[in-house]
């Protein structure tokens, strides 16, 4: 099992760091899955995570100048590692003017992801900073726990409003309540609501647009029969939503959410080189 990768381009490094920062904001620990072509950051919906789950996928070719990976076996050419994204974020934070950043999987005393940053210096040789990030190697028999979640059978799918606006609304609402209700309909309308004993606040968004999902064997096509005005709602933990929005440092190309009434809200944020899906379960 081997892994070595190198980033030389500063823009790629910057972009990669921003993705890691977003992941670090969402969860304390996650799984990093490495395949020949892609990297995945996965959080499975265990109780320990409060039921939220995440699937983030990026193509290695868009970031790394060199990428070599050998999985556990030929038929299972993948590596699953458990790590704290905050460590990776810290390692990359001070590398933003680096000449090169190398990442490799090592096992000197315990499995580590070693980040080697080569920094410019006034002397003849570069400054080298190494960060050994402890990782847990996930054995093959547990890989099934981390499969890609399927798109739920949602009631409403809608594009999100401008994330910056949504973020500032949610941040203010967070001061008033621990839970927020997201509701939307198939006419491009979305409401964010909080309700406490003293106050209730609703922010209305219009003309958001609903993404066209290809109808499969009739289950989504029944959406046409549904009342376009009727709202599907779910009440979720406001902190989770706030962290998701706060972590977005760049505007995504597409941002949408799928609501399963009273069950779960599925957020999909698409950028050119990376896609992020985040599931927040509804509270009773």
């Amino acid at each position, binding site marked *: *099992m*081997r*892994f*070595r990768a190198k980033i030389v381009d500063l823009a790629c490094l910057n972009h990669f760091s921003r993705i890691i920062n977003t992941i670090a904001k969402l969860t*304390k*620990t996650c799984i990093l899955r490495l395949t020949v072509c892609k990297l995945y950051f996965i959080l499975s919906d265990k109780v*320990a995570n409060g039921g939220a789950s995440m699937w983030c996928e990026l193509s290695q070719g868009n970031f790394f100048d060199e990428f070599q990976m*050998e999985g*556990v076996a030929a038929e299972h050419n993948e590596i699953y590692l*458990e*790590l*704290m994204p905050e*460590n990776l974020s*810290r*390692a990359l934070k*001070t590398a933003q003017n680096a000449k090169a950043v190398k990442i*490799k*999987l*090592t*096992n*000197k*005393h*315990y*499995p580590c992801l070693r980040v080697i940053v080569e920094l410019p*210096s*006034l*002397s*003849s*040789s570069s*400054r*080298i*900073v*190494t*960060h*050994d*990030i*402890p*990782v*847990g*190697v*996930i*054995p*093959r*028999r*547990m890989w099934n726990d981390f499969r890609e979640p399927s798109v739920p059978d949602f009631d409403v799918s809608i594009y999100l409003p401008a994330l910056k606006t949504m973020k500032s609304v949610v941040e203010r609402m967070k001061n008033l309540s621990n839970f927020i209700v997201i509701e939307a309909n198939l006419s491009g309308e979305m409401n964010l609501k909080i309700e406490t004993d003293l106050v209730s606040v609703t922010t209305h968004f219009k003309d958001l647009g609903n993404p066209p999902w290809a109808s499969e064997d009739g289950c989504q096509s029944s959406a046409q029969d549904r009342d376009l005005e009727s709202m599907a709602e779910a009440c979720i933990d406001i902190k989770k939503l706030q962290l998701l929005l706060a972590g977005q440092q760049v505007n995504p190309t597409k941002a949408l959410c799928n609501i399963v009434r009273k069950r779960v809200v599925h957020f999909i944020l698409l950028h050119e080189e990376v896609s992020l899906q985040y599931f927040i379960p509804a509270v009773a």
Partner: protein
Amino acid sequence: LSRIGDELYLEPTESGLSLRAVNSSRSAFASFLFAPLFFQQYEPGGAGPDTELFRCKVHMKSFLGIFRSLPSLEKSVGKCLILLKPRASHLVLQLHCKHGVTKTHNLTFQDCERLQAAFDTQRCASRLCAPARVLAEAVVHFPLTLAEVTLGTGPGGKISLRNYVEDEAEPSKTMVTELWLAEDEFQSVAVAPGSHITFCLKEFRGLLSFAEASNLPLTIHFDEPGRPMIFTLDDTVLEVHLVLATLSDLESTSRSPSTNGVSHLPAPSDDFADDLESYMAAMETSEGPSEGPPSPTFPLHTPRPAESEPEEEEEDEEGAVPGTPPHKKFRSLFFGSVMTPGMPGPATTQEVLAEDSDGE
């Protein structure tokens, strides 16, 4: 100085005004000596050659409060007068500002013994001198909350800085950061090969920002682990010393594969093995789903079997000083009472010779 201690000691001497501070566990001491030339006028006082020069200590916060906003001070203040009025128990700071405004601050002071850590840069085997900027760029890679860092020497004359992982922390769960600086980044390097020393980074950062701001090179003097480490800044009118206690080598500081690794896995190879084939093979064959891999993050996994303690001498804090937090392994710096005659030379023992007479 405020990063070190809560009290500011002022000691006027013939060679200038000395401002000093010490931290509560007496593991850090700093002194700034302003030569008489620094001042427009300097009168250390004292009626005659036998009269002891007056010294006192004031609350750091009260003193700092007077100089709170540097930019506005620079614009409005013409002169600053500092006066010690022993009989009135006041330290007077008078700011003469524009437009005829004079702000007078009277600070109450307390009597104190002379605060002096015993140290001797001449007795330090190793010395490094570097521009403050190089050191500042080096420490930026370590988190602000990091307590201790180890300075070491490596192959090719390189100097390394590495975060110190406490024995209580689990090594397989702690991120380790190491930075290597080439010899030619320093202005001078005179170190014993293979030497290393561990000190408190937090207390050093204060001096480092001062050095950066004043653009002065920093000289680091150190000796064996356990002996104080001295940082100095020199200027024509200012002499700065920061003395830090260092971690002694009684506890094993080497990062050797200690016996608290998982005993059912094959011993990791010593060379930089990239591949974890044998590790994975061992994991695949380990019994039962309940025995997960040693996860750095999920404490819910079965605890590793037969976790033996790393080789470590359980040493009582030598010369424990009341007031030193028991878990801190740093020796207290020794503070000689220069006043008491007949005491053995401060540099010869490692014990604390005298507490401040008013110390709690």
